[in-house]
């Protein structure tokens, strides 16, 4: 898949982050920057890291990929399969 390939190009640490973790980290970085107690070097590092996260989060918004699945119990075995509602197939 296209998105999988792209993900591989991003830092390993960031790939593991969920959108929620990324947003929380981003909010934390912004607060740290705003409190102004960091050295200039730290500020610039934080800024760079924050911008990377923000770009990643924004990209996630435009990323139209979304999986819609359903869990079904087939003879005691639970499996998931793509879900197509009637409305969508029409």
């Amino acid at each position, binding site marked *: 898949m296209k998105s999988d390939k792209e993900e591989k190009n991003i830092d390993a640490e960031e790939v593991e982050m969920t959108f929620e973790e990324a947003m929380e980290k981003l909010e934390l970085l912004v607060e740290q920057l705003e409190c102004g107690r960091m050295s*200039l070097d730290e*500020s610039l590092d934080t800024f760079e890291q924050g911008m990377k996260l923000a770009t990643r989060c924004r990209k996630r*918004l435009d990323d139209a990929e979304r999986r819609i699945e359903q*869990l079904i119990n087939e003879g005691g075995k639970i499996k998931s399969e793509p879900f197509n509602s009637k409305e*969508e197939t029409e």
Partner: protein
Amino acid sequence: MGIFTVSELNQHVKNVLRSEPGLQQVWVRGEISNLTLHRSGHYYFTIKDSKAQISCVCFSSVSRMIKFQPEKSMSILAFGSIDLYTVRGQYQLQILDMRPDGIGELYQAFEQLKKRLEKEGLFEIEHKKPIPKYPSRIGIVTSPTGAAIHDILNVAQRRLPVDLLLVPALVQGERSASSVANAIEMLNNTDVDVIIIGRGGGSLEDLWSFNEEIVARAIHNSNVPIVSAVGHETDYTIADFTADLRAPTPSAACEMVIPSSTELEKYIDSLIHRMIQSTDQKIKDHRTDLKYLHSRVQPEKFRDQVLQNYQKLDETASRMEYIISNLLSNKESFLREYAGRLDAVSPLRTLARGYSITMDTESNIIHSVNEVTEADDIEVMIHDGIIECSVRNVIRTDKR
């Protein structure tokens, strides 16, 4: 026996029903359901107990006389006659009078369970788990063909892309409560961040599975936060009270759980803006500091300092010179003045003007005639020499 047309058959049944005295002018007790208050003033509804139901019609001529407003799930005593609505072949109670009868059975059951679970603490705020701000995978428990999933998918499409995991469940009928409870348990074994359970609007009995204890327990035992979205805005169920968050409708649940893409975009942009601004400020602050420090170590400033010191030194030196020369010239003029004054009082000057000084031979100045006698030798000093004299006579001038 000939062949009836449907109309004839229905008419026949109608006649039979209407001629049966046991079905005329009867009282029946039950709970109102599927109520329609038609604009014409006619009321159409069913009354039911836990096992059966019967259609009722209350024409405006009667409904005008009734002193209360019938409501959904209201328990009533109805008085009327059994009739047949031939158009649909449906038998019904034609209401002649009705009155409220305490609280409906289902409603009573609802109230009892609510009270019991409340006492047990299932609705307590401290059991409410927070709903994640940015879920990435959402579990949904509802019918795969109902209005709820349709609404949810519709809303989800316009919001932050998230994965949806549906567990199809019965949301109506006898087995629905255990079906919903099972689905919740199933989703607890997946990686979903939050679960939405619910269904579209319906009558109280349609929504009943969400009022059952087994569903409330499943919600309470769930490790994943649960949003309950049952029926319409005005429908409150036990599931709503037990859930971590109540949404008025399934679409609203979706909106509450999945952040809006446009709002998030704006929010992220504002975060970017804040980062740029504070970093900018940081750089500006450092630039100001640097400027200040630079100004303090500037070499020109040192040279300037040295030159200023030179100037100060020169100034001091010339001031010293000035003071000393002043001092010298002062002393000189003093000297001149004193010399003049000394000159003025000098005996030599007096001598020069013709005066003389009389002295004895030892050069003591003779001030009085008493100091000399006749024949003494004296010396008279005048400006250009000394005259040695002998005293011939002494004349006292003060005796004259």
